[in-house]
């Protein structure tokens, strides 16, 4: 069996991801279109929340990817620090802006949802605040990548920042929970019995299927964007290497 690290060769990565990308993109479109259309037009309104509940098909998947995007960056950073595969570092770099945008989407859709439900655009609720802090971590990470000129140095620094940031993001989350018990409903999707039960606080099964579809769509969307952006980062890196070589003569 071939080693998985073979794909850490930039050229091999580009070849493989080129081949994968159309499939991933196609699946993304299918999942998102079906999930969102089904969710928006073919599910009943919630008896208490009305049609505003339908923003859940954007809000929950975006929030999911906001957190998992950071998690993926953490994994990629660890791989870079341990095995020093450049593709890994560049993938982390490529994922950061996507994760940041997902965080913005989660915050914005949350605000739009919260306005009719809670009567306010923003509350200092633990979940909202945690996401705001996560967004700040994304910003710092992206800014550090942009500020350091040497690519390997930047990869090392951002990897360590990502690890320290992960610890502090988790700490902040608990600190924020301690600081304010919030209005936000608990995690409703994965809770035991969520699929079977139709209690008002849970996501009942009418909504579950399209929600899972759009979540899958967002995951694939994220994967497709990361593949694409990693290719771009690899080419940009290659270009910088060639230019440095040129300057040296």
């Amino acid at each position, binding site marked *: 069996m071939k080693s998985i690290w073979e794909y850490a060769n930039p050229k091999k990565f580009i070849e493989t991801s080129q081949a994968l990308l159309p499939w991933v993109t196609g699946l993304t479109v299918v999942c998102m279109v079906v999930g969102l259309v089904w969710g928006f037009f073919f599910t009943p309104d919630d008896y208490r929340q009305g049609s505003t509940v339908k923003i859940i098909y954007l809000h929950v998947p975006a929030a999911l990817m906001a957190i998992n995007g950071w998690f993926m960056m953490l994994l990629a950073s660890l791989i870079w620090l341990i095995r020093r595969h450049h593709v890994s570092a560049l993938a982390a770099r490529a994922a950061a802006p996507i994760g940041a945008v997902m965080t913005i989407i989660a915050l914005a859709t949350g605000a739009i949802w919260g306005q009719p439900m809670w009567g306010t655009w923003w509350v200092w609720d633990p979940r909202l605040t945690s996401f705001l802090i996560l967004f700040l971590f994304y910003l710092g990470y992206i800014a550090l990548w942009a500020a350091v000129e040497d690519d390997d140095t930047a990869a090392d620094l951002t990897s*360590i*920042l990502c690890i*320290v940031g992960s610890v502090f993001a988790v700490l902040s989350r608990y600190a924020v929970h301690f600081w304010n018990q919030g209005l936000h409903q608990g995690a409703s999707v994965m809770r035991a019995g969520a699929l079977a039960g139709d209690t008002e606080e849970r996501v009942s099964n009418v909504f579950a299927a399209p929600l899972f579809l759009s979540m899958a769509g967002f995951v694939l969307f994220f994967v497709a964007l990361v593949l694409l952006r990693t290719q771009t980062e690899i080419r940009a890196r290659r270009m910088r290497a060639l230019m440095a070589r040129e300057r040296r003569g």
Partner: protein
Amino acid sequence: MIALLTRDLKLAVRAGGGFGLGLAFFLILVALVAFGVGPESALLARIAPGILWVGALLACLLSLDRIFALDREDGSLDLLATAPLPMEGIVTVKALAHWITTGLPLVVAAPLLALMLSLPGEGYLWLFLSLLLGTPALSVLGTFGAALTVGLKRGGLLMSLIVLPLYVPTLIFGAEVARRGAGGLSVEVPLLLLAGITCATLALLPFASAAVLRVNLR
């Protein structure tokens, strides 16, 4: 190590502003908040713990970029890196020097400024204790940020962007201790959590700071 500490303290005194600037900034900040919020003492008393904690945090932030930048410019950092001191020791001493020159004066001055904000009597002890426990963590976290951005030409703003989110847990628990203390409530839980965060930060973060400093010296 002791030589490094005494040198840094000596430099802070001689270069001027080592002790004074942070304090002056703290004072001005408190005054500005009072101007902004209005002179009503009941309101000021209510927000005093928060103001003082945020003020201390910002005053700490102000002097962070000097921790390594000056040593990097004059080449001392390269020489220290080749000296028989472990890098972890160097960053710890640097953080300690920063705390003595910036954190400690703030801790001492905070009760005086609390007086100006008419903090209730029960709050002084807890404000003092929470700052005493929390500011070392601020210095150590700041040293990490400074080590991370030492090679950059204009790293100051970037460093704030990176360091401030790291300050969130310390700020939350620290201000909570002060706030509960002022309200006459039990402070035990946040105080222990604050102490826990400070201890963990002191124990683990120097390794991260040393690692990024080594990367930046390459």
